[in-house]
C-alpha cells in the first residue's frame, strides 16, 4: 500500500470509530478486531500506526489539557472546558495536571491550539520586550 492509500484507509477507519463525533472505545476495539482478521502483518503495521495517530489526534481534539500552577478546582476546570466546547462547537472534557513552573495561572491545549494565561508566559513576554 502506498502512503497516501494508508492515510486514506486510516481516515476511513477513524470515521468508523466515532460515535456522535466522539471516539468510542467499543468501536475502536471492533475496528482493530476486524483489521487483524482481514489484513496481513506487513500491511497491518503502517495502517495501525496511521490509525493510532488519527485516534490520538481525535482524542486530543476532545480534550482540554490544562496545566496549572497551584490548586485548580474542578469547577474551574469544568468552566475552562465549557469555554472551549462553546468556542470550538464540540464537546471538550478537561484533563488537568499541576505544573508549578507556570508560577501562577494555567495553560490550556486543545488539539493544536494553546491558550496560555500563566505568569511564566507573562514574565517571558516581559523579558522579550525588555531585550
Amino acid at each position, binding site marked *: 500500500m502506498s502512503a497516501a492509500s494508508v492515510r486514506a484507509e486510516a481516515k476511513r477507519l477513524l470515521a468508523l470509530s466515532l460515535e456522535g463525533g466522539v471516539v468510542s472505545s467499543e468501536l475502536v476495539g471492533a475496528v482493530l478486531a476486524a483489521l487483524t482478521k482481514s489484513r496481513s502483518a506487513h500491511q497491518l503495521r503502517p495502517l495501525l500506526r496511521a490509525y493510532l495517530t488519527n485516534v490520538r489526534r481525535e482524542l486530543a481534539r476532545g480534550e482540554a489539557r490544562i496545566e*496549572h*500552577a*497551584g*490548586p*485548580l*478546582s474542578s469547577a*474551574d476546570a469544568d*468552566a*475552562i472546558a465549557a*469555554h472551549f466546547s462553546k468556542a470550538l462547537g464540540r464537546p471538550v472534557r478537561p484533563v488537568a495536571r499541576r505544573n*508549578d513552573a507556570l*508560577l*501562577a*495561572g*494555567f495553560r*490550556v491545549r486543545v488539539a493544536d491550539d494553546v*491558550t496560555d*494565561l500563566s*505568569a*511564566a508566559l507573562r*514574565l*517571558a513576554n*516581559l*523579558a*522579550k520586550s*525588555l*531585550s
Partner: protein
Amino acid sequence: MTFLSLVLAAETVHAEKAHESVWPIVGSFGVDGPHLLVQLVNFAILAFILHRFAIKPALGQMEERNRLIEKGLADAQAATQRLAEAQKASDAKLNAASDEAAKILADARNAAKAAVEAAKAEATAAQTEVIAKAKAAIEADRVKMMNEVRGEVSRLVVETAAKVLEQNLDDATRGRLNEAAVKQLAR
C-alpha cells in the same frame, strides 16, 4: 719653286730697287734687308703655326679649364647653399623635435600628475570608506553589546522575579490567581 724662293726672288728684285734708295742707309747700320724680310716671313709663319697649333689649343684648354673651375666654383657655391639649406632644415627639424620632446615631456608630466591625483583621490575615497565601515562596525558592535546587556539584564530580572514569585506564592494566592484567570478566559 717654292713660295719662299719666289718671295726671296721678289725680295731680291725689290731689294735691288730699294737698295738704291733706302738700303744704303739701312745697310750702314748692318741690317740685311732681304734677310730681315725672310726672317719676318719666317716669324709670321712660325707665329701662325704657334697660334694655330699651340696657343689656340692652349687657350681653348685654358678656357675649358676656366669653365670647369667656374663650374666647380658654382657647384661648390650651390653645394654650400644646399649645405646651408640642409643645415637650416636640420635645425628646423631639430627645433621641431625639441618642441615635440618638450610637449611629450609636458604631457607625460601632466599624465603623471593626473595619475597621482587620481591615486590620491582613490586612496582618500578608500580611506573614507574604511573609516565609514569601521564606524558602522563599531556602532553595530555597540548596539549588539547594548542589546546583549539589555537582554541579559532582562533575563536576570525575569529569572529573579520568577524565583521570588515561586518562593513567595502560596497555594491560596495561586488559587486566587487561577480563579482570576478563569474569569479572564470567560470574558
